Structures are given as C-alpha cells and as structure tokens.
C-alpha cells in the first residue's frame, strides 16, 4: 500500500510501487535509521536507489545506521517558497556527513543526509537554535512523525558531543 499524508500543510505521497522509499520511511516511522547496504560490494547508500551507485548490483539489504555526523554545508532560508515553511523562517537545510562510511569509497564521498535543524522532538528549530549551527556542528538524528509508516529524519544539535569552538557560519552577519 502507498502512503498519503500531510506534513506542515504539505501533501506527501509515496505510491505503492515505490518499495525503496516505502521501506526507508517505514524504518524512520519506528525511529530507526536504515540504509540500503549493497549485497555485492557492501557499501551503504543514500538516498534510496534501485541499484548500487558503485557496482550496479540490484541486490541490497536494509541495515541500521547510526544517525550521527557533522554539518558539511547548509542554507539558511529567510524567504520561504512553500507556504508550509513561511511561519518557520528562518529555517536551516543541513547537509550532514554521517560518521558511518565517511571518506569511502573515495575521500570526497560521504553519506550526506539532508534534513532541517530541529528540536529534539523533531519540530523545526527556533531562531536562537538556528544561530548556533554552522559547518562542523555535531548533530544527531531525530524524527518528525507524520503518519503510520512515515516519519522524516531530521537533525538536532548533539549536546553530548564535543562541538567545534566556532562552527563556520556565513560571514555577513
């Protein structure tokens, strides 16, 4: 069965043929982060794909992956496009390098997982939290529950981790 739901006023839809995305978000709904691990070469990949980006094997299995990493880059959106986000601006879009598989299979590669900066319970972060985060900030994954079988992975500041003295932020502030 496919999934239709509403998140922040946005209609979300995964059709019943899209087995990769259904499996990905079903794990998220259980607050577990799983990625496809290639049965041939053993590499994890993100986002879900129908074959391995490195060896083209169609076979994979879902594996639990630790949702921890550091911000690789970001955008801070002040002028939201989608109506759903206008009342949450400014909001952060984070590109996070997972610790798992960082620098593999080449040093320029990482599992770069997208998400917003969120509170520990998965709501979009308030402005004072947004101002604390930049490139290098250590973050951990949390989940924004949407409906049965669907939650979105999000990122929050990893308060238990050693943080950089000053994460890199856009200079004109």
């Amino acid at each position: 069965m496919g999934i239709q739901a509403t998140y922040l006023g946005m209609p979300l839809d995964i059709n019943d043929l899209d087995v990769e995305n259904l499996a990905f978000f079903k794990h998220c709904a259980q607050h577990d982060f799983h990625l496809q691990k290639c049965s041939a070469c053993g590499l994890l990949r993100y986002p879900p794909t129908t074959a391995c980006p490195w060896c083209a094997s169609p076979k994979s299995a879902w594996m639990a992956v630790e949702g921890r990493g550091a911000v690789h880059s970001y955008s801070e959106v002040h002028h939201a496009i989608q109506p759903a986000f206008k009342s949450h601006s400014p909001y952060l879009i984070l590109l996070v390098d997972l610790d798992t598989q960082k620098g593999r299979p080449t040093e320029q590669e990482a599992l770069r997982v997208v998400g917003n900066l969120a509170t520990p319970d998965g709501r979009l972060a308030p402005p004072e939290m947004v101002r604390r985060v930049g490139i290098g900030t250590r973050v951990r994954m949390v989940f924004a529950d949407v409906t049965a079988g669907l939650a979105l992975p999000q990122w929050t500041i990893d308060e238990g981790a050693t943080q950089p003295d000053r994460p890199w932020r856009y200079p004109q502030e």
Partner: protein
Amino acid sequence: MPMPAETETTSPKHLRDKYAIVGVGETTYTRGSGMTTRALGTWAVRNAIEDAGLKPSDVDGMLSYQSGDSTFSTFIAGDLGIRLNFYMDVFGGGSSTEALVGMAMGLIEAGMCKTVAIFRAMNGFSQVRIGGTGARAVAPVSGDMLHSRAYGWQSAGQMFSPTFMRHMHDYGTRPEQVAAVKAIHSEHASNNPKALYKHRVSVAEVLASRIICKPLHLLDCCVETDNGTALVVTSADRARDCRHPRALIRGVVGRCSKPRMDMHYQHGPVSTVAGHYAREILWPNAGVGPEDIDVTGSYDAFTFTTMLQLEDYGFCKKGEGGNYVSDGTIRLGGRRPNNTSGGHLCEGYTHGLNMVIENVRQLRHDADDSCPVGSDGKRQHTYDYREGGCRQVRKCELTANLGWANPGTGSAMVMRRD
C-alpha cells in the same frame, strides 16, 4: 584567425568549424507578456529565421526545451508553415541550449535534416515561476522528492546554496566578491536597450538587499522573465549564404555531469561543479584554452553560478573565482568580459539561450547597443562603455558559453568569428 596547435584527443574534432549559428532572435523581455508561450515561441523563431536571411521553408529541423511550462515544436512549426524533417522537445532548463546546439550538429551530420531552429519560450514570471512560487510551491511532494522538498529544499537558490556556502568555507570567498557579478552585469545591461533591468546597481546595494536564503541576497538572484528566444544552426557551407558573418562552432559539451546525479552532493568536493569535468571535453574539442577566449557567457542564475563555472572551466585557479569576478576582468573594457548583455541577472531569465545570442552578436561585431548606425546599416561602435553607451567588445574573435543546470550538470560551447 590563426588557431593554437591541435591537442590530442579522442573527441570528434573533425566537426570543429563545420557548423555555425546563423540566426538569432528574441521577443521583448517583460514581466507580463500578455501572450501564450506559443505566441512567444513563434515570434522568437520568426525573428531568428529572418535574422539569418532565410525563409521559414529553409528550416527543416526544430528543437526546444522546457519543464512542462511551454509549447511544443509542432505548434511553432505549424504557425510558421514549416514542414519539419525532424523535431524534438526535451525536458530541462538551464544547460539545454548548448546541449541542443550539439544535438543539432549531430542531426545534420546524420543527414536527418539540414537547418535547425532551437527555441525556448517561457512565461517565467506570469505563468510558471522558476523560483518555485505560485503553483509550484503548493504541488504535492511525491516519492523521491520527500528527500528534498519535504525539507523546504525546492527552489533553485535553496538547492544550490550548499555548494555556494561550501565554496565560501573552503576558499574564503566573500559576499562582496560575488556581488560584483551583479554590479558588473548591471553595467552591461545599462548599455543594452532591450534589457529588463537597465539601471546600474552597486556592490553595496547587492549586499544591502534582503537575504532570500543564505548566502543569496535578493540581488544575487536572476530576474524571472516572460520571453521567447531562438537560434538557427546549419552547416558552415550553407551558412555562407546567410546574412551575417558566421559564428562557427568550435566545440560543444552537453549536460556533462558530476557523479551521483540522483543527488550530486553525495560526491564531493561539494564546492566543485560540473565544469570540472566538462572542461576536459570543451577545450580539447575546441582546440583552444580559456586564455584564448575574448568573451564569456557564464550562466548567471545567481552571482555564484557565474563565479563557480569560470573557476572550474579554468579561467582562474581553483578557489580564486571570487577574485576573478571582482578584479575587473569580467567588466566591459576588462580582459575578458562576461555576459555583456546583462545576462539572467539583468537582461532577462531565459534558461541560457540569451547568453548564446549575445555571444553570436559579439562575434559579428554587431552588439545591439545605442551606438549610431552608419550609412552601411552597421553600428559605428564607440567602445565607450559608460552608461547608455557601447557594449561591443573590441576585436572579439572567440567566445565561450558556460551553461548551468545545477552544480552537478552543465553544458558549454566555444564559437569563433569567421
């Protein structure tokens, strides 16, 4: 003109100089065209055919690109009474122009048709806004899009910003350096009577404009426009019979990409764009290098896109793009002006086609500025680049267009004056 020595390559350099752009045309650039994309496309294609000195019946191939926001070749050909031997309407926006020029060369080479019109028609302001506002903002988020749009990561500026931001992090690129791209393109547009935005803006004004999504200010972003634009491509032999000096195609690259096109950020460096790969095709095919180029047309969807491409195509060292775009090099009168029409930031947003049109006119030494027209019907260029003056580059012999789809995909083309 003499050309540098041949470079060893496996590329099909036997096509070098074998094809030419012979006609260019556009509609006016407005925010509120009051007409359909079909009418805009017909107007632009008709202008391009007329500019070439051809009749509609001389055209037997047609290509266009769109994102579900425009008319099709069948309607344009029908409206102009053209019977086509080949047509195709492809999906896509930026980077399509140069890619379709390359396809036109291949079509003619394969004997499928003889002369190809390429068009883009868009009500980019009054109908489908590229920035993603309006109907696009409220469309359902489906399947693979849950990994982007569900996070408010949708518009071009939002999607590209992690690349821009990482470049500032990696190389110390400053906001005022990239803001110079807008300031300089606005100077160029002030000498282009058909530009939508003809007023000059300063670097300080760019930096004082409101933040859209960091690191982009409002004036770092291009101007959504209603317009139609068109080119006519034919063989260099047939081009001899056309009205203007030929703009000969030296080499072309189409939609060359970084790895992991499903989400290019999976492969780094994130601060490197597709030009890093495309240059390995462009320069060997063209038989020239960046140092030989007189005018560039580096796609300016944003100030940053111009900078990133000039850097990755080798016009400066990696990481020095901020300096390159702000030291006067890319200004009219500088060593290598960029987007002399004002580009997307000022002339109008066309998904790249107007930048090719501009370079064709530069190669003809016939930029349509405000210089007086002489008794021979040609503009008497003054090379006085002050506001309202000339925008023709002196002795323009070689141009490069650098098209952009996103950080992960780009196209490029080198043309030379006959």
